[in-house]
């Protein structure tokens, strides 16, 4: 079963938040939505789980019992313990006692929360709370797991644990879709959708996106004048040279990664 959107348009009053966005969220894979602030990532996820009404187009999603959602607010109750939060999620999704026991044991272990089951949600660190929210969203083994920036503000160790949770969900057959501001995280996804101002800038497997960069990306020592198609990477600058144009004298070709590919796609749209 394939989940996703077809020509999805969402409007907030006169403002178009999403403009004819079509995407697939295949089963057994982790897909990622990336984009800048205000690009429509959260709206896309909210529309996918049914929290936002589409103005046009359609959404394909499983029934709510088979849907898991992690909102940016985590969904963790601060006045309940970790154990009680999981009890609530299990009861809400009607997970049987034996399954619930098995699942929470496994997931808490992977999330590194096994020793915190009696702590209140409000007493957890930000990263622990994020991980608990993800565990709650996937406790019932959903067919479609949608996560809104689960790794934002989380330390590298916790991000690795979160990643393990998502890989585990995909391995057990779920279609996992997360939004993220970290391109290195998106790089680990099987499929990436890049949003820009409410529409799809580019989409595909990270390797394919990198390979399909038109022209060449070169490394330049200083910021070119005029800056044009250049951007800062680390201590230096990179510049995109579209097909048919000549690279600046002395510029060296640079290895392209997903970040470069996304920037080139944005520059290509603006061109």
């Amino acid at each position, binding site marked *: 079963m394939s989940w996703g959107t077809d020509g999805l348009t969402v409007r907030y009053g006169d403002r178009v938040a999403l403009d004819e966005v079509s995407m697939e969220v295949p089963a057994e894979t982790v897909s990622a939505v990336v984009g800048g602030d205000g690009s429509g990532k959260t709206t896309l996820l909210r529309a996918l789980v049914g929290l936002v009404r589409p103005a046009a187009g359609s959404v394909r999603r499983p029934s709510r*019992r088979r849907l898991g959602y992690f*909102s940016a607010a985590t969904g963790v109750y601060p006045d309940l313990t970790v154990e009680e939060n999981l009890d609530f999620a299990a009861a*809400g999704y009607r997970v049987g006692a034996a399954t619930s026991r098995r699942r929470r044991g496994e997931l808490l272990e992977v999330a590194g929360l096994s020793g915190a089951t009696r702590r209140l949600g409000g007493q957890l660190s930000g990263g622990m709370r994020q991980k608990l929210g993800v565990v709650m969203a996937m406790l019932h083994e959903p067919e479609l797991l949608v996560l809104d920036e689960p790794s934002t503000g989380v330390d590298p160790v916790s991000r690795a644990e979160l990643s393990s949770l998502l890989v585990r969900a995909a391995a057990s057959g779920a279609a996992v879709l997360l939004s993220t501001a970290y391109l290195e995280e998106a790089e680990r996804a099987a499929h990436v959708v890049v949003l820009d101002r409410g529409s799809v800038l580019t989409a595909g497997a990270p390797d394919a996106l990198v390979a399909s960069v038109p022209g060449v990306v070169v490394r330049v020592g200083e910021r070119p004048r005029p800056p044009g198609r250049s951007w800062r990477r680390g201590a230096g600058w990179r510049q995109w040279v579209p097909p048919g144009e000549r690279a600046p004298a002395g510029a060296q070709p640079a290895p392209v990664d997903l970040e470069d590919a996304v920037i080139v796609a944005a520059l290509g749209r603006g061109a």
Partner: protein
Amino acid sequence: MWAIVVKEFRELRRDRRMVALMVAVPLLLLVVFGYAARFDVHSVPAEVVGPGAAHAARSLPPLFDVTRVRPAEGRSGAVSDLRTGDYAAAVVTPGAAGAGSGELLVDGANLFDAQAVTRAVAQAHLAVPVTVMFNPRLNTSWIMVPGVIGILLVFVGTLATSLGVVRERQTGTLEQLAVMPFRPSDVFIGKVAPYFLLASLDTVVVVAAGLGLFGVPFRGSVGVFVLGSLLFLFVTLSIGVLISSVSENQGQAIQLTMMTLLPQILMSGFVFPVASMGVGVRWISFLLPLTYFVEISRGVMLRAAPIGALWFPLAMLAALGAAAFALSIVRFRRDLAPNIAAPPSPPAPAAREAVAGGEAR
């Protein structure tokens, strides 16, 4: 300093609710205290029974608003009528069944009416014994405790419920509930039921404390009181959910709860008699649930009023509850499920939803 002043004004300009409260509260207090906060009683609903009732009715001081004259009725009939709460005083003429000489019966559950009647009789030098029924010592606590029960229920029911739901919105978990396989009614009932039970428990505790500490009698039917309390809780909890649906945070929910509590305390007849209020504002008291709960609780506890005498306040509570519930469920549904209607019945675990844009789902 100037920067803070400018910033504060800018924030205030955008917090329309706060500005409305700053204007509305003083206006409300002015209206309430100006027109409603009156202890003076100008008219007391009365009936006259026994032989010579028509003549006696004509000779009563102007305070008595005689709306019923029953020459064939005796003292017990007058007591029954007082029990219904429709009359605050009953004149029993000499020779009436059950009464040797003449007697003036006064409903002690209507404190200010009873005091006004006794004063008027003394001033008119009427040689008639006055019997204060239901609250012979005109004990203030007997009048206040049944009303206080209602105020506590408003406070606990409305405030706790509104805070509970708003807290869910503030922590972002309300959105999570909207995605989980719950119907809006499941969420509504699930949220409200604990407060309903706690408020019910509160009622028992407060009534027991009122009886034990203040010696307030409980003369009527427990069943009628329970029915009235349940209907009243239905209204207050629904108002709580309604408040939560228009509040963005707990501070706003508290402010709005106070806005509903204040007029109820002042205009429900709990302190000031409704009949003494200015005609222009009296109608407000008929929209307040506490008005009807006070009628029911005083009627049951002090006068042992039968259910037949309390049908109107009971019906009004049911009507107000239905209106508040309907409004709150509409608001709640809109809040909770902008897109998702009732969850699909799950014949197959992998049931699929395809949501087409523009469909009203």
